[in-house]
């Protein structure tokens, strides 16, 4: 295992640093708060000759995604990054990237979608494209951003997968907060990601292929089915790649991360940086002898249903925290977890709490409140509640 090398960096720099070590052939990106520092750091690496990557300073996110699609189809390893409005603008091509089965890796620095315009964190951007066919990983801290960005390359490019991966980090909270991050030596990362093995590259003019054909009712459905299967493969190969990553880093990554779950009766489920806050509250309540625990969801697409069933069956109560609303329906994470638990033998009592929209702080007392409601078995499965909201 490599010698420890700690850097005090932000989540944005952690993403950029990982990208530097991956050294993709092409990066096309357009700045937007809070993703901007990723583009800035990377542009500097290019300007200083620290990477041989060709950077395309596109005029919009729509063109950023369009250009990485072109680059990936040509046979290059291509990456980008964005936030909220940028993702919304490129969303048409986000679907095309996955449907053309291009192994692109994109950092998504989560930010609330307009309107009203807001630059702070929530997960409405990621949730907007949750059915776009991208693998979605959520990070708790800068270390995970660094690690999962590297891991994502292997997942995307695995021959049974060939799907794009979105590595989510909470805007400002992770992207602009400085943390110690243990980085790997360049050569270890290079060796881990290896060389991209292009499949049907456009630049192979001796074997011409057509990308993006018109596909009507006689084939479209079968192609979508293949995409559905590819997601299943992503689920299947993730542990192998995570195991390999463990061998070089000593850091273990699973679809989900259980925290003090052994005998937990009351469990919280969440995505992203809030898991840090929740862990603190769990420790505190555990100190008081309360049987609470946390199930952090790291992979949201493909959705780790089996793990969720395994961890949550027969618990007394489960509260799900969502940093996004689904107007007119249940919040996305809650809906998914609840649906997964339909099939378990002993279903827990469930409650849904939406929090943190537009960057509103999630305070320990909010988490504590939600746990108390769970412990009092005072939850209504059909009722969405809000944390830290003025009514």
């Amino acid at each position: 295992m490599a010698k420890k090398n700690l850097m005090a960096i932000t989540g944005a720099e952690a993403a950029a640093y990982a990208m530097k070590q991956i050294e993709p052939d092409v990066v096309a990106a357009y700045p937007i708060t809070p993703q901007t520092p990723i583009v800035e750091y990377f542009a500097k690496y290019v300007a200083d000759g620290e990477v041989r990557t060709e950077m395309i300073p596109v005029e919009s996110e729509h063109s950023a995604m369009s250009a990485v699609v072109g680059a990936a189809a040509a046979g290059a390893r291509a990456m980008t990054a964005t936030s909220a409005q940028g993702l919304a603008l490129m969303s048409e091509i986000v679907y095309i990237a996955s449907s053309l089965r291009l192994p692109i890796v994109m950092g998504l620095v989560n930010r609330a979608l307009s309107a009203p315009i807001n630059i702070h964190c929530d997960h409405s951007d990621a949730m907007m494209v949750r059915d776009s066919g991208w693998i979605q990983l959520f990070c708790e801290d800068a270390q995970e951003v660094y690690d999962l960005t590297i891991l994502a390359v292997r997942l995307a490019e695995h021959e049974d997968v060939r799907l794009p991966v979105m590595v989510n980090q909470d805007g400002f909270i992770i992207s602009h907060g400085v943390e110690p991050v243990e980085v790997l030596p360049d050569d270890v990362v290079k060796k881990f990601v290896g060389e991209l093995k292009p499949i049907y590259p456009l630049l192979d003019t001796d074997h011409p292929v057509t990308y993006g054909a018109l596909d009507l009712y006689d084939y479209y459905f079968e192609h979508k089915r293949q995409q559905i299967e590819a997601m299943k493969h992503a689920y299947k190969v993730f542990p192998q790649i995570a195991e390999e990553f463990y061998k070089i880093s000593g850091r273990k990554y699973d679809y989900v991360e259980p925290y003090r779950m052994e005998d937990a009766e009351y469990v919280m489920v969440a995505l992203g940086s809030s898991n840090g806050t929740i862990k603190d509250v769990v420790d505190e309540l555990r100190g008081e002898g309360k049987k609470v625990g946390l199930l952090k969801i790291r992979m949201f697409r493909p959705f780790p249903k089996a793990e969720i069933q395994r961890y949550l069956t027969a618990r007394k109560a489960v509260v799900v925290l969502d940093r996004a609303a689904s107007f007119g329906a249940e919040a996305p994470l809650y809906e998914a977890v609840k649906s997964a638990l339909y099939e378990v033998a002993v279903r827990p009592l469930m409650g849904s709490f939406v929090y943190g929209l537009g960057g509103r702080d999630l305070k320990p007392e909010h988490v504590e409140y939600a746990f108390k409601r769970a412990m009092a078995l005072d939850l209504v499965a059909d009722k969405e509640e809000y944390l830290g909201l003025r009514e």
Partner: protein
Amino acid sequence: MPLTMKKLAEIFTNRETGLTQGHRMCPGCVAPMTVKMVLMVAKALGYEPVIGFATGCMEVSSTIFPYTSWSVPYIHNAFENVAATISGVETAYRALKKAGKVPSDKKYAFIAFGGDGGTYDIGLQSLSGALERGHKMLYVLYDNEGYMNTGNQRSGSTPPGADTTTAPVGKAVAGKLQLKKNIVEIVAAHENVYAATVTPGEPMDFINKVEKALQFDGPAFIASLSPCVRYWRIDENKSVDITKLAVQTKYWPLYEVERGVYRVTRKPTSFKPVAEFVKAQGRFRLLLQRPDAEQIISELQNYVDRRWERLLAFEEATKNKPVR
């Protein structure tokens, strides 16, 4: 490899252009002619074309899965982003060449094709970005003056008085009222570009400009007037003649702008009135039934006359004065 007629003819007769038979474009449609002529020149010059195509009539008709009419690498991404897509392909090429992962002796030509909708309207930003960044690409506009794939809707390229479904010639309104956007001027306003108009009715001019465009050290843009027989409501065997008429009536002047230097490449000794161009096409039939038809046509005549004078003036003023 120098361009010879023999080589061009060989590629054409051996069907080696890269666009093979079996596509489902209407007989007489000028879009596939435009594409084939461009590819013929590229191949004759020894280039390996890699094609990007914007959504539109030609794209849907040439790639109906599981068939494809393309025997060269081809990517269709979306409607408005062919320029950005080809910039990605071209950049990938530069990156992989640097890394020694593509054969260094291969001469690639990155060619984007877009219709007028994909170029004048929804794709203008993507095109402008790619031109400004200076990608070594050739962008070919096949201009049929409307959204034909979706059934003849108005575009920024549709001429005044043409009947379209979104600007129909009605009892109160004479169809589209605005003039065609001047796309070549927009493109030429970017620095260090080559921009030209062509049309298949003038094949020598077409071939020369494509050769120049491919060899230009920077982004090149070629606008080809490419009539749609279906919605221009013309006979299949008249589509190329119409393009000649467009040149003879100053409707589609043939010229080029190379780094700011204008050159008018066809200067007919006598011109025909633009009314002849209008009257030759069914899409103006309803206009011609209106009492204000003559006025609208005379405004168009006035416009093409002034534009022609301006072009000659630009040619004179910019002679031997490239911007860089």
